[in-house]
């Protein structure tokens, strides 16, 4: 059984933490997540017991660090079902997508080629591609969404409409509307049309089982901090032959076999992408986060998200003044507005009640054309979110009072 009290006891941020003098209700997990003691202890272990660089010393501490990095890489590979050498450490999802853009797309795209994305994508899966188009003369194309979703059909149609698509890049689960795409079928369509498929897993990998090999995507990116891990670490998982063909992005120590006046011979992937000292404490924390998620089980985490989603929607959908933009998403994200209330004002009112949500466009700045509103409030759950927290959230949405209470009733 899903022991929510036990789970919550694992997180220091859930122990009597207050905001605005009220018990904290943290519902901004699509932005970042809390860390359990085990992750914090793993990070501390680096500084307290391990502190050495990896792959550049002849002493035991250094060797031990190499072992730790390899153990983390293996843990991630097992978690996501990839080969160990298909896991590239990055600073997070954003750097991962930039690595595909600059390491793969820059070399392989030319004038007239096309990159396909959707208007609901996060900035990290839009702006690197814009830059590649500027540099190569390639063209950005946008899916015709179906019910605000990137469907298999909409991707198929895009390949009929645009004849030179070389890269398709989509979020596995959208960060505003929370819809999951059919990544496996979309990957298959991309491949039969000669394109590669880049899957942004920032909002999916933390919340549900994701199988890199089964989906057969070419690249998968995600960040540790959205899955109970530390900030400043993430992954690009890529098919090994593609990684080997890619250019290096950052150059420097730790990524080359040798260099002389003639040039440089890079190491094999993934090392050739990991120039400079790695974020070692975070790599140890990342492994602890994965171990924590595996202990609970990704199926259970997904089920918990869906249960909370259904519970919250059932309580909210009968209130005419609450506009919900993704009632059928059944994921960890609900985007909404209160009629006549500006999103930021609502978020500030909720802050005054101790409830953390996010308002705005959530870095998906083209989505306002899709859902026809300049801003939304987004609440997002995670494995430690309780039904009681949903109750507090719903109660304050329905009977929260006037937005100016945030300034005058504290």
């Amino acid at each position: 059984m899903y022991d929510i009290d036990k789970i919550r006891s694992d997180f220091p941020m859930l122990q009597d933490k207050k905001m605005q003098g009220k018990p904290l209700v943290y519902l901004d997990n699509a932005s970042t997540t809390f860390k359990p003691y085990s992750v914090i202890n793993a990070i501390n272990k680096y500084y307290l017991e391990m502190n050495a660089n990896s792959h550049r010393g002849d002493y035991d501490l250094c060797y031990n660090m190499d072992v730790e990095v390899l153990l983390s890489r293996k843990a991630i590979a097992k978690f996501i079902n990839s080969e160990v050498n298909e896991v590239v450490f990055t600073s997070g999802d954003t750097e991962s997508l930039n690595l595909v853009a600059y390491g793969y797309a820059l070399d392989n795209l030319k004038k007239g080629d096309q990159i396909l994305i959707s208007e609901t994508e996060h900035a990290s899966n839009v702006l690197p591609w814009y830059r590649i188009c500027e540099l190569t003369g390639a063209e950005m194309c946008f899916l015709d969404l179906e019910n605000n979703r990137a469907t298999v059909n909409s991707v198929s149609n895009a390949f009929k409409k645009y004849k030179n698509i070389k890269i398709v890049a989509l979020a596995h689960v959208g960060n505003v509307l929370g819809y999951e795409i059919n990544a496996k079928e979309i990957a298959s369509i991309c491949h039969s049309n000669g394109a590669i498929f880049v899957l942004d897993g920032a909002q999916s990998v933390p919340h549900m089982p994701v199988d890199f090999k089964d989906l057969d995507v070419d690249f998968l990116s995600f960040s540790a901090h959205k899955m109970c891990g530390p900030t400043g670490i993430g992954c690009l998982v890529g098919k090994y032959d593609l990684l080997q063909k890619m250019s290096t992005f950052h150059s420097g120590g730790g990524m080359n076999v040798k260099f002389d006046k003639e040039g440089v011979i890079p190491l094999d992937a993934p090392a050739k992408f990991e120039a400079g000292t790695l974020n070692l404490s975070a790599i140890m924390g990342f492994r602890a986060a994965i171990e924590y998620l595996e202990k609970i089980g990704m199926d259970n985490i997904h089920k918990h998200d869906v249960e909370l989603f259904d519970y919250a929607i059932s309580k909210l959908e009968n209130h005419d003044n609450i506009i919900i933009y993704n009632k059928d998403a059944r994921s960890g994200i609900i985007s909404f507005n209160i009629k006549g209330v500006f999103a930021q004002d609502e978020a500030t009112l909720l802050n005054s009640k101790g409830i953390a949500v996010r308002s705005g466009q959530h870095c998906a700045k083209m989505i306002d054309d899709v859902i026809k509103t300049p801003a939304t409030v987004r609440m997002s759950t995670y494995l430690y979110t309780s039904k009681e927290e949903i109750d507090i959230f719903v109660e304050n949405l329905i009977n929260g009072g006037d937005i100016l209470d945030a300034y005058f009733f504290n």
Partner: protein
Amino acid sequence: MPISLTNEMMRAIIMDHSSNPTNKHTPSGDGYEKVHMHSDNCIDDLDIYLKVENGKVIDACFEGIACTISLSSTDIMCDLMKGKTIKEALYMIEQYQHMMHEEPFDDEVLDEAIVFVNTSKQAARIRCATIGWNAANSILKDK
């Protein structure tokens, strides 16, 4: 304006300026200086217009998208700017900034803007309450 405004009065003033911002329009004549302002953590996306002649602010208005706090604070700022000398206007902006950051301030010159005295309770919204004021400051400070 006395600082003894009740909470209810202050709320009414904010709501009045946000639901009916009389200075929210583009300028009708020439001679306006424009500053574009946007916020990283809010939707606020505003153009602020000031018309300055002979060392005095003749007119102030704005256009754009804004939350309740930025809308009302910018509208009130425009009201208060009109007719002030540059020196008076800059002094008022300075006192407003002090109020935002819970520092001692001269309430005599803030007039209706005193209604934002509680903004620091919602620190994430200080940017909203000052966005129009910062725009005016950037136009006036080098004059």
